[in-house]
C-alpha cells in the first residue's frame, strides 16, 4: 500500500519507492512507498518491530536499503528499484546535509557544551567562522528556550533539555526536512511536554517533518499524513481525520491501546 500526502500538487521533498530492507535473514521492510510533500507533517506509528524507525532511517541513509529508491529534493540516492534503469546517485553526505534528524537517545556530544554541540558542528560541517557559528548556536538555543543553559554540558541537562538542544543542533544546519525518531520515548513523562511544544512550534513554521512517535495526541494535532505500519508494511494511511475515521481494524486496535 502506498502513502501520499494530502496536499496533492505541492512539491515532493522525500519519496520512497519499493524500499526493501533485510537484517540478517529477516526482511523488516517489504517494499515501502511513501511521499513527503513540502510543508507536510507525516506521522509514522505502529507496534515495535513494525519497521517504522527503519523507514525513517532509510530517508537519510543511516539504514541503506537493500533495494528501492530514496529520492530527496529531486536527487536519487537509494540503490534503486529492482528492474528499473539505474540513474546517477547522489552522495549520502549531501543528502544528510539537507535532512535533519533527532534521535530517541538525543545523541548529544557529551564532550561539548550545549553551545558547542551546535557551534562546533556548524564549524566542522559548514566551515562557519567561530563567531558566526556561536551566534547561530545562541539563536537556535534561544528558539528552544535554552539560551541560559548554553555553557552546560549534556550531562548537566535533563533529558527534555538535551532533546531540545538536539533539535536546535539539527535545525542549525538549515535542513529542508526534519526526521524525528521517537523523540520523546526516552523521556520521563513530565518532560515529554516541553519537547512536543518545541516540535509543535516547528510544525507551525511550516517545516517539513516526518515523525515516528507513540504520542497519538500529538499525531492527531500535527499529522497531515498518518501512516500505520505493521510487520514491515504500511497497512493504513489517512489525512487529518485519520484518527476519527480509521477503518483498518489493526490500526483501530493499536490507537485504542495507546490513547
Amino acid at each position, binding site marked *: 500500500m502506498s502513502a501520499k500526502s494530502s496536499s496533492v500538487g505541492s512539491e515532493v521533498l522525500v519519496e520512497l519507492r519499493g524500499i526493501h530492507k533485510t537484517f540478517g535473514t529477516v526482511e523488516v521492510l517489504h517494499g515501502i512507498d511513501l511521499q513527503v510533500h513540502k510543508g507536510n507533517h507525516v506521522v509514522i506509528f505502529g507496534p515495535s518491530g513494525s519497521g517504522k524507525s527503519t523507514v525513517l532511517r532509510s530517508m537519510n541513509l543511516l539504514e541503506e536499503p537493500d533495494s528501492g529508491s530514496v529520492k530527496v529534493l529531486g536527487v536519487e540516492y537509494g540503490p534503486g528499484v529492482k528492474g528499473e534503469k539505474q540513474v546517477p546517485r547522489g552522495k549520502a*553526505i549531501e543528502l*544528510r546535509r539537507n535532512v535533519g534528524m533527532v534521535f530517541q537517545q538525543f545523541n548529544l556530544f557529551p*564532550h561539548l557544551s550545549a553551545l558547542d554541540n551546535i557551534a562546533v558542528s556548524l564549524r566542522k560541517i559548514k566551515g562557519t567562522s567561530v563567531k558566526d557559528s556561536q551566534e547561530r548556536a545562541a539563536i537556535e538555543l534561544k528558539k528552544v528556550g535554552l539560551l541560559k543553559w548554553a555553557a552546560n554540558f549534556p550531562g548537566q541537562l535533563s533529558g527534555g533539555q538535551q532533546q531540545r538542544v538536539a533539535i536546535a543542533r539539527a535545525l542549525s544546519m538549515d535542513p529542508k526536512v526534519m526526521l524525528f525518531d521517537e523523540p520523546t520515548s526516552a523521556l520521563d513523562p513530565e518532560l515529554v511536554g516541553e519537547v512536543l511544544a518545541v516540535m509543535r512550534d516547528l510544525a507551525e513554521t511550516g517545516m517539513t517533518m516526518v515523525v515516528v512517535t507513540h504520542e497519538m495526541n500529538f499525531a492527531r494535532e500535527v499529522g497531515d499524513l498518518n501512516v500505520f505500519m505493521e510487520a514491515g508494511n504500511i497497512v493504513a494511511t489517512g489525512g487529518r481525520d485519520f484518527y476519527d475515521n480509521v477503518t483498518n481494524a489493526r490500526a483501530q486496535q493499536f490507537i485504542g491501546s495507546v490513547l
Partner: protein
Amino acid sequence: MFRSDDLPPVNFHWALVWENRWALVRGLEVSIQVSIVALVTSVAIGLFLAISRMSSFKPASMFAASYVNIFRGIPALVSVIWVYFGWSLLFGYNFTVFQAGVIALTLLYSAFFSEIFRAALQAIPKGQREAGLALGMSRARVFTSLILPQATKIAIPNIGSMYIGMVKDTSTFAIIGLVEVVRVTQNLNATNFQPFVLYSAAAVLYVCIAFAVDLIFRGIEKNFQYPPTGRISRFLTKGKNQKVAVLIAKFS
C-alpha cells in the same frame, strides 16, 4: 639448632644511598627519558594498530591482530636484547642503548596500547557516530571530532597504569648497559657489596615514580571530564565561558 649468631654480622650502610644520591637520580632521569619517548611513540602506533584492527580491510585487521598477539607476549628483556644485538648481527646497524631501549619498549607497549584504544573506541555508543553522520559529517570527521576525543578520555587511566609498567621495564635495559636505575645500582653494588641497601633504594625510587605518574594522570583525567574540573582546562576555558556569558547577554 640454627641460631642467628651463627651468621656473620650484617651491617647495613644506609648512608651509601645518600652518598650516591645523584648517581641514582641520574639513573632515574634516564629511565624516565627512555619511557617518555617510548610512551609517545607507542601511543601513536597503538592507536594506529587499533584503527587497523577495527578496519573492515582484512589484511590490515589481520596484521594488527597478529602484531598485538605476538608482541604482547614478548618480555622486555628479550625484546631489548633482540633489538640491540639482533639488529646489529642481522643488518649491521648499531642502535645506541637509548634508541634500543625506546624501540624495545615501543614494540611491546604499542601492542598493549592498541588493545586499550580498541576497547575505548568500541565503548563509544553507536548513536554518536549516527548523530555525526546524520548532521552531515564525513566518516573521518566523525572519528576525529567525536569518537577519538571521547575514547581518549576512557583510555587515559589505562595509559597511566601502562606507563608505570613502562618505567619499570626500563630496568631490564641494564643488560645492554643503559645507565638507568638498576644499572647504577649494580655498579654501586659492585664496589660496595651492599645489595640489600642499594636495591631497596632502587625499589623506593620506582615506587615514588609510580605515585608521581598516578598523580599526573589523575590531573590529566580531570581535564578530560565533562565539564573539565582540572586546573589547566579550567584556566583554558575561563575565557571561553566569559565569551558564552557575553553571548547569552547579547541574545537574551
